[in-house]
């Protein structure tokens, strides 16, 4: 049983749940903007206007009877992802990576029938995964295929990059790698590996699994200390643009790097978790305060990304 004193945490500038909720989410995120991020379909449409690309939309299932179209549409597809528009924390997302005769192969390697997918769609429509249990719509997206440089670190699932954006400034980033324990999902609390990324250059800092520091990926066995993300500046600018698109002052931006299309926005999160601090080995508070203290904010996403790269080197 390890414990840490609150004074030490304060000293490290660790942002905690209560302060995040009261001082950042409640203050900087207007309720009006929530539907934009809580509904993936709306997110897709709104960020498209700000030149932020997302995985290609294949189908939107709004009503029970539209599920029958899904079978025809999916007939000649190899990979796709079914997502509930109002889902949270990756709940209800089913990723199909291939076909095996009549059956579809899930990311975990399990084979499922079309009927299974149809039931899944029906559950989504009934609101099983939606935040308040309200009726939902299901979206079917093109499968993202990660670039091999990153994909090789991850067990099965697509690695994604979480960037916390505060008032339009990217303040902290991490790479999330799926593991066997996380069932091919990139959810840290299920056992995915979080690798802190240096905002200045997109290089890995250190890595954690289940909040414990690690140096090697538990499944692939690869060292996690020399990962570098290409097109880093472009990704920061993309994340920064989402601020203009949604108006949310404090959010998490989830990006993936597709082998064909480059960086894509997966989803936005108005209540990003705190584990990113563990992956980076430093607290968010000093960076957030530094931005709050800015007298003259930068107006373009490019300026903000540049400012962040300059200011938030690994040392801060």
């Amino acid at each position, binding site marked *: *049983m*390890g*414990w*840490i*004193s*609150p004074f*030490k*945490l304060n*000293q*490290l500038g*660790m942002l*905690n*749940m*209560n*302060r995040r909720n*009261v*001082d950042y989410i409640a203050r900087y995120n207007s309720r009006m903007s929530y539907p934009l991020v809580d509904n993936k379909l709306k997110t897709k449409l709104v960020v498209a206007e700000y030149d932020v690309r997302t995985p290609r939309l294949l189908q939107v299932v709004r009503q029970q009877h539209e599920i029958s179209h899904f079978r025809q549409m999916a007939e000649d597809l190899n990979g796709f992802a079914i997502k509930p528009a109002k889902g949270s924390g990756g*709940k209800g997302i089913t990723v199909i990576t291939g076909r095996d005769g009549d059956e579809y192969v899930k990311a975990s390697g399990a084979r499922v029938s079309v*009927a299974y997918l149809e*039931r899944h769609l*029906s*559950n989504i429509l*009934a*609101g*099983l995964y939606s935040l308040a249990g309200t009726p939902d719509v299901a979206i079917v997206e093109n499968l993202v295929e990660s670039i091999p440089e990153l994909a090789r670190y991850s067990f099965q699932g697509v690695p994604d990059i979480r960037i916390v954006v505060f008032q339009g400034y990217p303040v902290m980033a991490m790479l999330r790698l799926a593991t066997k324990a996380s069932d091919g999902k990139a959810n840290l609390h*299920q056992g995915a590996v979080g690798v802190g990324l240096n905002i200045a250059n997109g290089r890995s800092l250190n890595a*954690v699994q289940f*909040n*414990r*520091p690690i140096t090697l990926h538990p499944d692939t066995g690869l060292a996690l200390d020399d990962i570098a993300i290409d097109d880093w500046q472009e990704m920061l600018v993309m994340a920064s643009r989402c601020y203009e698109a949604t108006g949310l002052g404090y959010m998490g931006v989830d990006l993936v790097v597709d082998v064909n299309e480059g960086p894509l926005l997966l989803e936005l999160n108005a209540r990003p978790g705190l584990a990113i*601090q*563990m992956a980076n*080995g*430093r*607290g968010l508070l000093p960076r957030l305060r530094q931005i709050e203290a800015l007298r003259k904010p930068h107006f373009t996403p490019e300026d903000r990304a540049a400012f962040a790269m300059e200011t938030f080197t690994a040392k801060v």
Partner: protein
Amino acid sequence: MTSRSRIPFFVAILLLIAAGISIAVWRHVELGIPWFTGEQKPVWMVEARIDFTGTGEPVLASMNIPDQPPGFRIISEQAASPGYGFSIVEDSGERRAEWSKRDINGPQTLYFKVQLVPDERVRTGNPRRRPKPEPVFWEEPQATAVEELLQQAAARSSTPESMTRELIKLLQPDGGAQNTTLLVSNDNYIDLLNRMLNHAGIPARIADGLALEDARRRQQLRPFLQIYDGTSWLTFDPRTAEQGLPENVLLWRQAATSLLDLVGGDDSEVSFSMLRQTVPALQLAQSQSSENGLGFLSLYQLPIEEQGMFRMLLLLPLGALVVAFMRIVVGIKTSGTFMPILIAVAFVQTTLIPGLIAFVSVVAIGLVMRGYLSSLNLLLVSRISALIILVIFITAGLSIVGYQMGFNTGMTVTFFPMVIIAWTIERMSILWEEEGAREVLVQSTGSLFVAVCAFLLMSTPLAEHLTFNFPELHFVVLGLILLMGQYTGYKLSELRRFHPMKAYD
């Protein structure tokens, strides 16, 4: 930005909490509502007994009864006298009990009972009209002796009070005045004193007091002297000149012309018996709340059925407080925000252990059945609806099995909210599929732990007593919950969660 926007908030919270506590204290003082359960208060039961012999004529017995006796509060009055007409009449400022009957022969007994609570704060009300000394006429040779005694007393005193004290001392056999032997005989002493004071221009009167002693019977009234000092009536012991009323003396008759007027009877006699009882302080407060102006603030006026409902309802804020504390400050995960309160409320009805067993078994059986339902490929709404029916079957089954086995506590599982249980089972089942059994275990033990904590708080007799009798204390609970809503510090669980950060220090 931080400090400026929050100061008015904290001041408001402080005011809220202060208001809650001060209203509670005020009601405790004014209405005597006790802070703790089971507090007892002494109550004196005094019974006046009138004996007389009827002479075959219509009878009207009229007895003076206490009206605002200093140091006591009257909480009930009743007369016992079969066959008599009875009423309490108010006649030129004095209260009298009147019994009447047409034909009476032989010995008769009438009773009048009064219940009194000692209360220091009760004082004799000030007279509406300023009393004036009664004119007194003396015959010689008393007149000279009286004048002389009064002059001596006046010479040694400065106020009506000291004058009275000096006069009483002078009238004692060893008081050193020769004139006393001429004036004083044993049976006119108090009357003489009264007349002399009136003669000296000090309004005076005789009051009758009753020394209260537990379980005494056949007691007589004792005369006390009262003088008016310009603002209020002061009481003196006519023998010792001691000022003030001794403790446990009840002034039965003040400002009244006679104790008993009897028409149509002979040989009348009044005697008193008394008993000291203890009554729950709460009951006392309740019986008085309707008379008191503050009564409207309490729930005692409601019908009993509603009171019972509020007793339960007013416990909920405590449960909410526990949930808020556990989630915000301690950081325990629960399934559904207020699920623990609902479970805790059910526990209050079922008691803890049977409730826990019943709840865990309903949810466990439900989870097994839900597993079968999920293989049927049902739509969500119909799945939950089916689950609700199953949950009702499970509780009915458990009740029947429990009853057959001789536990009638099995019946009480019906207190659990069925729809909520059905939803819980559904959520747990999904949680199991998505996050694994560990997360289910964490959340369900968290919920049960918080529920048990809330139950333990809600089921203490003190909690029920305070929430129901001092509903204003909920302002304090509200204030605390609002304060917690502003808590931005680390949760206890985060001190553990973030402990690997030590490595980066």
